[in-house]
């Protein structure tokens, strides 16, 4: 469908759920019903792996993938603009640092 590469839905889903779990372990679990507690990075679990919670709808995942793709493209293109304004051929970290504040405010 798109000629550009983008973020895959599986990757976006895992990225989001990585940080959903962090919220729950910081004590917000009771608001979601407290079904899922704690990280599962080690040890042998006795219970079957829980389904990712809260679930993200398929459309929202696609939209998030697009959102992240735009984020990366904006960062890259603004870096290019900064480098062109400074008459450079290569975008270095210095140029990225200059565009980063406005990028983070826009997103």
């Amino acid at each position, binding site marked *: 469908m798109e000629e550009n*590469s983008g973020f895959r839905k599986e990757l976006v889903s895992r990225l989001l759920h990585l940080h959903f779990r962090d919220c729950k372990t910081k004590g917000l679990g009771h608001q979601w019903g407290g079904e899922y507690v704690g990280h599962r990075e080690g040890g042998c679990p006795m219970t079957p792996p829980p389904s990712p919670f809260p679930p993200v709808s398929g459309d929202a995942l696609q939209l998030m993938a697009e959102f*992240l793709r735009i984020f990366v493209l904006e960062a890259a*293109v603004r870096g290019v603009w900064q480098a062109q304004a400074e008459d450079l051929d290569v*975008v270095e970290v210095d140029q990225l640092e200059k565009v980063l504040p406005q990028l983070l*405010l*826009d*997103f």
Partner: protein
Amino acid sequence: MCLQMLEPRVTPTLPRAVARGRARDRKEALRALTLGAARRRGSAGKSEPTVPRRPGLSAVMEEVEAEEPQEFSHRQPLRTLVSPQRLKAAVHYTVGCLCQEVTLDKQVNFSKQTIAAISEVTFRQCENFAKDLEMFARHAKRSTVTTEDVKLLARRNNSLLKYITEKNEEIAQLNLKRKAKKKRKPEDESRSSRESMAEELDGAEELQSES
């Protein structure tokens, strides 16, 4: 899903390269992994339900599963172990692909450190996005994160909000079309079978009338 089924990993240098954070090593190691992953997948014969067959994430996941044995027992359900480093590597690969497209478009190169920096920023912003999405869904008293939450996430910049809203409508229309196709398909099949039967009957009647 036992670890013993997997062949030993092809490039042992990936985790060290990732830990060192050298972008070039990581990229080359990931590319080398794609060949190894394809070979391993064929021989191991694992079936993973929804993992897409693209180099970046699946290669990283294969590497994850191949190098766990030293730390955990062999009966561990590995699909649930996704540590941040592997996700970072997968993000880095995707960011590299996107930056390559920008390079082709604008004729300006990106240094390796820049690509690494962009992927680091993306990864860290994801944490904020995820927390915001969860809060929005909770505020709306929903248990699912929907497209409305994502649109609220894009509120800071007007053109971004406009773009995301348009994309959302595109996606919604695509889904409608797909649903319509699915509904039409079984109807078409029954209709076509009825038509073919009718043709056969007509043909039989003609033959009978001729004879």
